[in-house]
Structures are given as C-alpha cells and as structure tokens.
C-alpha cells in the first residue's frame, strides 16, 4: 500500500490548463473566447454545477470513443468543469453522438433522443457524425447524425482530439 501511495505522490498532478482556442479555429469565436474561463461559471449557474453528457455510438468505428474516453484521463480531467458522462439519457443534458448512423441503430438513436429530457442539445462528433465520413450514405448507413436527429453542434475530425472535443463543448456552452 505504501508503494501505491508513493506512486500517487510521485506522479503528482498532471491535469493541464486548456488553452483558449484561437479565433481562427472555431466558428463561434466570440463566444468561445469567453467560454474557456467562463465554462465552469456557466455550468455552475445554468446547469447547477453539473453538465451531464450521454455518449451514443450510433455506428462509429470506435475511434471517436477512444478520444472521448481520453477526456476522462488525468491530462484533460473533464470533470473539473462539472462535466461528466452519465449512463442514461434520462440523466443527460447533452447527447454526444458518434458515427455514421447505421440503419440498424437508427431507431435506437431516435428513441435515445426522445428519452432525453428537454432542454437538450445534440453534438455530432467526428467526420462520420458530421457528414457521414468515409462511409457516407448506403443501404446500411444513414450518414450524418443530422439525418436522423436535430444536431446543435458539429465537432469534425477523424477522430477529433480530446482538445477539439473540449473546445467544442466550450463553444456549445458559451452560446447560453
């Protein structure tokens, strides 16, 4: 046990301060400019200190999931902003949807959307979620998430890096 505590002590705090995105990289730059520092404030005030995200894989290759998972590692530690991932759409403020929506997941995604209480927001994550990506439209794929449920924000990338995900989140919250 001593070794374990020793290791924790030695590892120290690695969590990074996220740089505010520059005007050039994001569409909603004016709000994003404020969002970085204001996020916690917004989450505290608008979401009672807790912003809940339900992640739904609607047909992705799992690449986006890996990067979304990375948001929880010690470097990004997204929970410090009051942002956390929940197990049920009933508990969620935001649906984070990845993948070209496979036709086999179409009904499941719609029902997950319906199960999420209002007000709710949808983020389409990754090139596939944004526009269908490498898979596009086919007999088995509906393509972009917006073809199936309304989308409030798109975060492109294949897959988007954790930093891009975080910036997207900031820009969505910064709108309110």
């Amino acid at each position, binding site marked *: *046990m001593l*070794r*374990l505590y020793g*290791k*924790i002590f030695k*590892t120290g705090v*690695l969590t990074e301060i996220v740089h505010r995105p520059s005007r050039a990289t994001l569409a909603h730059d004016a709000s994003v400019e404020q969002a970085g520092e204001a996020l916690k404030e917004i989450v505290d005030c608008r979401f009672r200190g807790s912003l809940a995200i339900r*992640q*739904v*894989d*609607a*047909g*992705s*290759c*799992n*690449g*986006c*999931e*890996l*990067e*979304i*998972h*990375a948001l*929880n*590692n*010690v*470097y990004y530690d997204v929970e410090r902003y009051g942002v956390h*991932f929940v*197990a*049920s*759409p009933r508990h969620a403020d935001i649906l984070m949807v990845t*993948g*070209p929506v*496979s*036709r*086999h*997941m*179409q*009904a*499941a995604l*719609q*029902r*997950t959307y319906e199960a999420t209480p209002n007000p709710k927001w949808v983020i389409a994550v990754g090139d596939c979620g944004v526009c269908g*990506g*490498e*898979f*596009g*439209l*086919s*007999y*088995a*794929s*509906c393509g972009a998430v917006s073809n199936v449920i309304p989308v409030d924000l798109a975060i492109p990338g*294949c*897959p988007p*890096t954790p930093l891009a995900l975080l910036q997207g989140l900031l820009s969505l919250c910064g709108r309110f």
Partner: protein
Amino acid sequence: MSETSVEKPAGACPEIRDLMIGRVDRLEGLYAGFDRAGIEISPQAPSPLPPAEVIEIKSSDWGRAAAAGREQNWRWAGVWAEDRGYDLMVNACLENHGIYAILRTHLACDHTQLPSHAPHYWAADRPERHIQDLLGICFDGHPDPRRWTRHQAWDEGAYPLRKDFPAAGSPTDTSPPDRDYPFLKAQGASVYEIPVGPVHAGIIEPGHFRFQAIGETVLNLEERLGYVHKGIEKIAEGRDPTGLALLAGRVSGDSTVGHAWAACMAMERAAGLEIPARAAHIRALLAERERVINHLWDLGALCNDVGFAFGYYQFGRLREQWLRENQSHFGHRLLMDRIVPGGVSVDVTASAVQGMRKSIAALRSELDELLTILDANSSLEDRFLGTGILPTELASALGALGFVGRASGQTFDVRKDAPYAPYDRLRVRVPTETQGDVSSRFWVRYKELRIALRLLGELLDGLPDGEVVASWLLPHEGAEGFAAVEGWRGEILCFVRFGAHNVIRRYWTRDPSVVNWPALEKLVLGNIVPDFPVCNKSVNGSYSGHDL
C-alpha cells in the same frame, strides 16, 4: 492425389528447408485426409494467393472437406464469397502451423445451396450466417439458421453483396428496430432475463446482450450483434487502392494500423508489388505502437472494471503520453492513414528515433514499478483470479485468437508462425498462460506489452535506409491477394480482388473479434452478472470490426 504445389527445396538453408518440408508434409496430410474421405481436389499451382495455398473442391464435398480438415487439426479461420456475375465463388480459410489453405468452390447464381462447415467448426457459425444474409447462400445442415447481420435495414430476399443490389439500397424513412429476433428462452422457477443494449451504459460501441440468470448466476448469454453494420464490404467495391486503405483504416478504430496493413498487403500481393524495407519496418513500428497503446488502455480499463481506480488512471496516463508521441512523430494520435498502398505516408526522423528510444525506456521502468504495486494488491487478484474461465480445449475448438487464445494455451501468432517482413527477421516471443481466466488475459496483455517494447527497440536499431513508399503497379483485371497480419487483438485476414482499371471488386476482411466474440458467451457462464463487465473487457471484442 499426391500433387502438391510446393517444391521441396534442395539448396535452401537447413532451417528454411525444414520449414518448407514441414509445409509439404502438412499439406500432404490434409490432401491425404481429403483422399480418405473420397473428396476430389485440385490444388492450384502456382497458388493465385501466395503464400496461401488454394484448393478447388466440388460444392457437394464442401461439408466433408471441413470434416477432414478438422480431423487433421486444421483451424478454421474464415469464409467469404464473391458474386462474380456468372457464378458465386465461396472460399474458406484453414490454417495449421502458419500454413494457410484456402478451400474454393463455385455455385451457380440460381443454385445457392452449400453444405455448412458449422457442424464441424464452431467458428463457422456466424460467418456463414453473415454470408447467408448478404449473399443469399444457404448453408445446409447449419445448426442455427437464424439471420445474423440482417436486422431490418433491407428486405429478407435482398442480398446487399450481390452485384445487382445498389450500394444505396432502397431505404425507408426509418429502419424499424429488430424486435422479433428469436432469442433462446429459458424457463423455470426463478429464472429471469436481462436484456442489455444496444445502447450501453458507458462510452462503448452498440450491441445487444441477453442474459438468463438465476439469482446472480448467469445461466446463458446470447449476443446479438450487427448494430454497427455499415456495409463496409459493399462500399469498398469500386474504390481505388488509396480509397480502400482509408476505409480499411476505419474497420475498427483501435486496429487502424492492423487493418490498413492487411488491406495494403493484400492489394500489394495482388499487384505483385514489393514494398521498400524501410516501409515494412515503419509499418511494424506503427503496429507495435498500436499494440502498446491498446494494451495500456485495456490494462487500465480492466482495473477500472473491478473498481481499482489507481490502475485506470496510471495506465491511462501512460497511454496518453504515447498518444501524444504518436501525434508528434507520426502526425496522428491513433495512427490513422499512415499506412498507404506501397508503403507508409510518414518517415521517421533521427530525432524521432531518439525520442522513441527514451519513451520505451521510460515506459519499461514505469511498468516495473506498477507491476510491483498490482502484484501486491489482493483486491485485484480477488476479482481477476478464477473469473470468466475459457478452458484450453474450448479455446482450441473455437480457434480463439490473440490474447484471448494465448491466455488459454493457444500459441498461434502470425508474426511467429507465418512471418511477413519485417517480422521474418525478428524473433517474436509469444507469451501463453493456461488458466484461461480474466487474470490470465490481464497478464498475457502485460507480457505482450513488454515484448512489444523489446520489438520496438529492435525495430529502431535495425531501421534500414531508403524510400518509404514504392510507386503503385497497376494490377491486372481479376488479380487477387490474400494477407494475414497480427493485429493487437490477433490475426487479421484480408482478401482483395481487383476489377478493371485499378478498381476494387471485392474486399473481405476478418477481424479476430469474429472468432473471439463466441468465446465470451462461453466463458461468462456460471459467473455472476456483476462480473460480466470485466469478463467482457478481458475479451474486448470489436463491434465495428465484427459487424462490418
């Protein structure tokens, strides 16, 4: 029937000669088995899919050929079919000690009955149902005639992989959910059912699990997959080699190097293209880095699933460091699109070599330190030891691959048994355990991680100079290629056929998950429901790679 397509070499060095003679003996054993069963065969010489052998057999002998293969202890590795317009060609891949034998038969388009391999090989169950759903070939004698990949996105009588089926399909507004799949029912006092998914409670791919349980004990588990079916095999048709490499890199996001390498190798073999030695080395560097990153992630996730957050955060920290290093040395955190037809799209600089050497040494010492802590932690042992046992015989019967197979005594590794450049010049050690529980799968991963670090060191030491990509050779119409690559989950198979003008006519790939998913159904039996997450994670099958 004594013809073989391999000549016994006279002048080769003793080791290679032994290997080649072993190859001839094994194939002769298989041929003799066919002979005893009265199966007429015609081996193709020279093989159109080297280094695999292709053996033509009559469709009526198809089932008995599998029985003969089973008798000779050949492992069943996969099946694929092709609509060639005028007929349907079916191929089944068998493997024994690194020798791939591909059985091949032809069916008329309007006569689609074929004896099933599933009564002889469990692994053939779902792949044959996949073919039935996508190509309309009926497998006689299949023990489970239920649909598999087909949910409700296309009609029962429509077959997406037939040439007359448009890739766009004819979709309705919303594909109805697959409500009426006939799951196995358990009845009796205090038996109850737990349906899980397709939308799971975590950040994970979709699929459905149906448990029957008494109290906390799992009586039966039935997997229902296919939710992530994206039509990969169909949309690959008509792409050029570059386009196929992009698609293959997205068959399964965590195996992007493995699948892209397999697809490129198959295409290069079809085109008769040899890649530069430096490119092969860099591909192996990328593949081993992918192995390291995924094993780190799995070790952390396994700790997390039994509530040992320390392990989750420590391994997650190490993984993130390597992901960032990928970004700085190779330009992509998950290494997507770094492997291209003819070589790789990125070179390694001298400073990157130095950087990687340092991070290998650093990870080694970190792992040493963590090993001591993990080993001394009895709470981890409590949950891992004796949980989710896959017995050795069962693993062998299923043909379990990668760390799932190795934790149950299966030694097969493409890098060692059917080596390709640059592994043909390296000694790949394959760690095995025999207990077959979650703990074994944990420690096999740990050992594979250590071995990958050593391989990375050797690859960096022996990095040859030269080009990193060869210019593409136009394959002739109908050219075909087959490749087997050891991905981080295990053996990845790939078949490619070109049409005219450098265009893909058929792309088939088999992720190791296809073989390992059924193992999960078996190893979870008799365990308690709360142990399912850790059992599932210890197998870590890919949904996307399975559903295609």
